[in-house]
Structures are given as structure tokens and as C-alpha cells.
């Protein structure tokens, strides 16, 4: 092969590479723009997304007794809720909002913070009249957290993240007397809104809330 032919082939190869790269860049920008738009997808409980190289796994939000809530509920009043959030993903996940069940979805009362023995006369079906604050008759209403919560990547600091949600449990004025001095397992969130990617994790334990 002559030098000129070799040079021409190298030139065409390099030029082709540039064209391909440019096309990929355009596609990438387009897809990236699509992905960067805030959109919401509801998945079935326990499902996860599959990618070519990584999976997006659900967060785990669990009841915990510690730190114990100090702002306790009373009939007609609100109280704190305590949770721990675990992130199994290899990157931090930032939660900005939660979605709530209806205001007719009641908590079940238990005799101790272990939430193992139900409190007679204070069950969800009684009803206990304990619900999420600001929940409505519509399921899945979204409520923005006062401060976004970032749970560290799997195996990193601040994962799990303990959070006290201030005044986010509500007790009805006609709650039975059996619901006094009782621990409650709050109804499950119907969803959370979370953004993945690099972020500074929130220090555990944290305090947060939604106020509307």
C-alpha cells in the first residue's frame, strides 16, 4: 500500500470516527435531555429497573424505635414519625417528596415500640384515627420535603439514614382511649420521588417534614 493510500484511508477513518462521534453526541444530548426532564414513573412494589450495566433498586423505608419520637400525638394533635431509609444502589439517592395514602388509611396501634403485639381497641379497623398529616381523600398525593434527604451510596456513610419527620402523624379528636400510650405503624407511602447521582449525603440522624 502506498503512503498516499494509507494516508487517505487513515484520513477517512478519522473523519468517519468524527462523524460517528458527532452523531452519537447529538443522540446522546437528545436522550440526555429527555432523561433530564422530571418525569414520574410508577412501578410495582419491589420492582427495579434493569440497564445494560446497572440496576436501579428500590429504597427501603422502615419503622424504627430509635431515635424515639419526643413530640407525641394526642387527640386532635400531631406528632413525630421516625423512619430509617436504606439505599441499596451504588450511588447516593436524594428524596425530595413522598406520596401518601388516603386520610382514611389508618395506622395500627401496638403495645411497644417493637411493633409486635397489637393494641386492643386501637387497630386500623377500629379505627385508630391515626393518619399521615396532610393526607387527603385522594391516594398518592405528593408532599415535598422541607429539605431534600440524600441517602449515601451502598456501603457508604449515612446509609441507612435515620429521619424524624416532625409533626407528620395526625391523630383524630375522637381517637379511642385505648390509643393512648400506644406505638403506631404508620400506613405505607404509596411512593417516593428520588433523584440518583452524585450528592452529599445527609448526616444521620436527621430531622425533616412536609408542611402541606
Amino acid at each position: 500500500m502506498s503512503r498516499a493510500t494509507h494516508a487517505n484511508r487513515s484520513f477517512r477513518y478519522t473523519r468517519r470516527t468524527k462523524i460517528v462521534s458527532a452523531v452519537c453526541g447529538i443522540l446522546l444530548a437528545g436522550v440526555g435531555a429527555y432523561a433530564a426532564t422530571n418525569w414520574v414513573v410508577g412501578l410495582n412494589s419491589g420492582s427495579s429497573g434493569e440497564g445494560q450495566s446497572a440496576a436501579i433498586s428500590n429504597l427501603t423505608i422502615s419503622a424504627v424505635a430509635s431515635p424515639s419520637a419526643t413530640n407525641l400525638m394526642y387527640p386532635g394533635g400531631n406528632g413525630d414519625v421516625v423512619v430509617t431509609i436504606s439505599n441499596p444502589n451504588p450511588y447516593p439517592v436524594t428524596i425530595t417528596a413522598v406520596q401518601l395514602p388516603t386520610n382514611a388509611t389508618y395506622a395500627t396501634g401496638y403495645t411497644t415500640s417493637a411493633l409486635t403485639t397489637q393494641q386492643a381497641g386501637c387497630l386500623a379497623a377500629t379505627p385508630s384515627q391515626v393518619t399521615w398529616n396532610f393526607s387527603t381523600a385522594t391516594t398518592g398525593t405528593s408532599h415535598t420535603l422541607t429539605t431534600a434527604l440524600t441517602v449515601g451510596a451502598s456501603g457508604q456513610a449515612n446509609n441507612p439514614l435515620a429521619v424524624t419527620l416532625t409533626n407528620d402523624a395526625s391523630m383524630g379528636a375522637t381517637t379511642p382511649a385505648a390509643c393512648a400510650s400506644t406505638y403506631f405503624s404508620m400506613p405505607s407511602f404509596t411512593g417516593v420521588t428520588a433523584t440518583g447521582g452524585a450528592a452529599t449525603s445527609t448526616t444521620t440522624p436527621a430531622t425533616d417534614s412536609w408542611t402541606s
Partner: protein
Amino acid sequence: MKGRRGTLLVAAPIALGSLLLVSSTGAAWAATNWTVTLHTASSAEAHSQTVPSAPTGATAACNAPTTARTIKVSWTAVTHATTYTVYDSTTSATGTYTSIATGVTTTSWTSGTLNAGTNYWFEVTVSVGSNWTSAKSSATAESTINTLSPFCVQP
């Protein structure tokens, strides 16, 4: 795709529509600023207060002028109180008490004209909401309504 040496990024759309960037070396990381709603069953714990304690500091005082034969009962406010109920006994401090005023929303209550020649003791309960009611307070000191002046005395 291969070209000149170096890392070339390939877009990899996934089922959720989120974007992962996969390098030609095989390393992968999640792009920032993608948002999904993750539906996961969750649990959370809350705790309720005890039934309220009985009101404290219950006292009874003859109203002026004592010719009115009325008594004012007062007590210390209870946190988160919805209403108070006043009871009286005409036999003794440890006798049987009868509800004489319900739905009281202040920390005092004034009786109507009381029966002459009768001794009175008073106790108070507090309710938080409709169904959480405390035990009765300690009895007030005895109040006596006389037929003659002084018409109301606390011995």
C-alpha cells in the same frame, strides 16, 4: 464503537427511560438529574401520649358578695386540654361526686346559687379530645353555704 484510542461514551437507554453512561472500558455510572418515582412498601413509627393526668391546684372560693351564695372553682390548666368537667359532693371530701358542669373550656367555673345549709366539695377532670379523660382532681377544701350571714364560708 472503536476509533481512535481512548474512552468513547455510548448511550444506553434502559427500561425506565433513565440514562446510564457506559464507557468503552465497561465502567458504568448513573447520569445525574434523572428522576423516577420508586414505589416501595414502607413502614414508619409514631407514638401517642398518655391519658392526661388529673388537673392540679383545684380550689373553691366564695364569690363576693357572699349574699350571692355562689362559689368559684379554679384549677391549673392542662396541656392540650379540650374541656373540663366539674363535680361536687355534698357529703364529704371522699363522698360521691356528681357532674355539675361539662364542656368547660376555661380554668375556672362559677356555680349558680347554692343550697343554704349545705357543705360542698368540688373535683375536676380534664378531657383531651372526646374520649381521653383524666381521673378526678383532689377535692377542694370544704365550702359551707349558710342560711344566715356569712352566707358562704371556707372553714
